[in-house]
């Protein structure tokens, strides 16, 4: 009997008892659907987290001032002004593999344009900042070296600020007032979207580091050329851990810390944080695989059960087939193919159901739906294998029937 004919007769046997077949498949349908839906949603969510982490910038470390001890009291990050833009320049100059070292200060202020005002973040930066964050201009230009050196009163707006203050008007060359200082808008930054922590990264105004220090941030930063943090972008991820060690040594030396003193700054490897997130996603995948295995096991047992019933019900048919010349292995393959077909159809229905669930949930949550062709193929393939595995015992029982006994059975 050819495979096509075997498949056709298997489909006939399955459709002959459609309700029972569907109920039998239910275990596999639910198992596969759950896995497909979870994987689709999970990889969608993961992709979004990855996007957010990437929007921060690749191969990035952040150095923050602080963690100093004043007479036994330990102060948190940003509590001191131990970090300077000289430190940043030294890092870029002396540490190998550093592409950009961007010192910055951050504050909050009211921005006013004509009758509109808006409370937003003010970030005082230099041009390295846009390199480190991989942040392009949507229109206008970045700061030129003179503007940075002299601390001129110019600003680059984030998308949210530009939209809020100017609506559909072009902000370029307009004047925005911040802390009573009239800033000339020279550029609008491209949109970055939400940060990994849900902040709107476009709700921001950039000003030259020197300008921010003098006119906006207050006296904390006005002396000593101090900055709150430095973004350090490395050329390659591989050199990051080593580079961070060197940065630490360099800064300790520059800050003249004693051998036994604690660091007066903190270095965080943002890429490492991203990797940790990926690793926990992988753990979740393993968990999903375990759930899938259990539900497929249950589904497989259901198939074995119904195939045993089927063999019993069709004993006479088996006897007849043997009498007219079916070899035991013909009977074996007939029932094996039937079980496999049953399981594969269940797997396919499960994929369809799972995709439906994933689309609905993703739509509701606003995530992208990501289903790889592989995961679909694997789901159907594994279902088929479950059919083969759990169909084998019933099929063997059918093949081992004695034709005389089988024909006599009522």
């Amino acid at each position, binding site marked *: 009997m050819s495979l096509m004919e075997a498949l056709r007769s298997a489909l006939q046997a399955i459709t002959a008892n459609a309700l029972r077949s569907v109920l039998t498949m239910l275990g596999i349908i639910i198992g596969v659907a759950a896995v497909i839906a979870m994987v689709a949603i999970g990889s969608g969510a993961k992709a979004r987290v990855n996007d957010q982490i990437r929007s921060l910038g690749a191969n990035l470390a952040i150095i923050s001032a602080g963690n100093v001890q004043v007479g036994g009291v330990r102060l948190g990050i940003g509590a001191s002004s131990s970090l300077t833009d000289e430190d940043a320049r030294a890092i870029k100059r002396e540490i190998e593999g550093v592409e950009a070292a961007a010192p910055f200060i951050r504050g909050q202020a009211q921005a006013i344009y004509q009758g509109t005002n808006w409370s937003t973040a003010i970030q005082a930066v230099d041009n390295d900042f846009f390199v480190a964050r991989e942040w392009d201009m949507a229109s206008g230009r970045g700061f030129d070296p003179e503007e940075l050196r002299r601390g001129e009163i110019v600003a680059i707006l984030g998308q949210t600020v530009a939209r809020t203050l100017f609506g559909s008007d072009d902000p370029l060359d307009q004047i925005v007032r911040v802390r009573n200082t009239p800033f000339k808008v020279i550029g609008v930054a491209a949109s970055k979207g939400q940060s990994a922590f849900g902040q709107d990264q476009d709700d921001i105004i950039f000003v030259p580091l020197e300008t921010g220090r003098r006119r906006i941030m207050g006296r904390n930063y006005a002396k000593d050329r101090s900055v709150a943090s430095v973004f350090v972008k490395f050329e390659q991820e591989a050199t990051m851990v080593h580079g961070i060690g060197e940065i630490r040594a360099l800064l300790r030396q520059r800050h003249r810390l004693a051998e036994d003193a604690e660091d007066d700054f903190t270095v965080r490897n943002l890429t490492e944080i991203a990797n940790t997130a990926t690793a926990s996603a992988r753990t979740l995948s393993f968990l999903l695989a375990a759930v899938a295995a259990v539900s497929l096991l249950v589904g497989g047992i259901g198939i074995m059960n119904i195939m045993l019933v089927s063999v019993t019900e069709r004993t006479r048919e088996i*006897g007849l087939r043997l009498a007219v010349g079916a*070899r*035991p292995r013909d009977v074996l393959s007939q029932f094996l193919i039937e079980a496999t077909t049953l399981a594969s159809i269940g797997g396919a229905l499960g994929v369809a159901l799972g995709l439906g669930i994933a689309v609905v949930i993703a739509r509701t949550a606003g995530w992208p739906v990501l289903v790889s062709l592989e995961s679909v193929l694997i789901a159907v393939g594994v279902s088929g294998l479950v059919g083969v595995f759990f169909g084998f015992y019933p099929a063997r029982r059918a093949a081992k029937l004695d034709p005389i006994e089988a024909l006599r059975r009522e």
Partner: protein
Amino acid sequence: MALIEARELSRIYSLDAGRVVALDRIDLDIDAGDMVAIMGPSGSGKSTLMNLIGCLDKPTGGSYRLDGVMVDRLDANGLAKLRNQKIGFVFQQFNLLPRADAATNAELPMLYAGLDRKARRRRALDALARVGLADRWHHRPMQLSGGQQQRVAIARALVNDPRLLLADEPTGALDSKTALDILALFQKLNREGMTVVIVTHDPEVARHARRVVRFRDGRIISDERQEPVRAEDGLKELQAETAA
């Protein structure tokens, strides 16, 4: 050389209660083209003999040749092939697949002979025509009378051009007129050259055979040739009775 050659053929069942000798060293030859009734009460060994002749079972002693093939040396696959090629089975309960139409039922043995779809359909329709059901090929068993179902079963037995038609109480589930119809069909096939062996306990059926072999307690107690009653004559008589 006879079509069937059984020598010292024995079949002993080993049960918990002890040994049961179902068939006790029988010798039996059946020539090609003959029509033989195997008779005997239940437990006489006639069903055991049928299973052995039909290559469904293997003897515990003696030897059996079917069409020159030593059956007792074959394995399960060899027996399956022999059943497929040389024997057509007809059962008391027809044993048709309920969801398949007449043509598909008749095709079943050819499925295991490796014939392609077209050839199967053609030969199945030929066989159905031979048993007088050419116009019923698309009917399911449920839509056919008992006699028609048995005809489908006979068509199924014929499709692989077997050497032997082996019928086990073929009229047991039919009324007497339909039984005569079926016997007439067997006689017609026999006249066309088919060897027919009918296993029955019914003397009325045995009268239609050319030769009657009687069994009791696992042994042959008589083996006689006779002038067979023509089933057509019986049908005419029946018609005359109903007309009168």
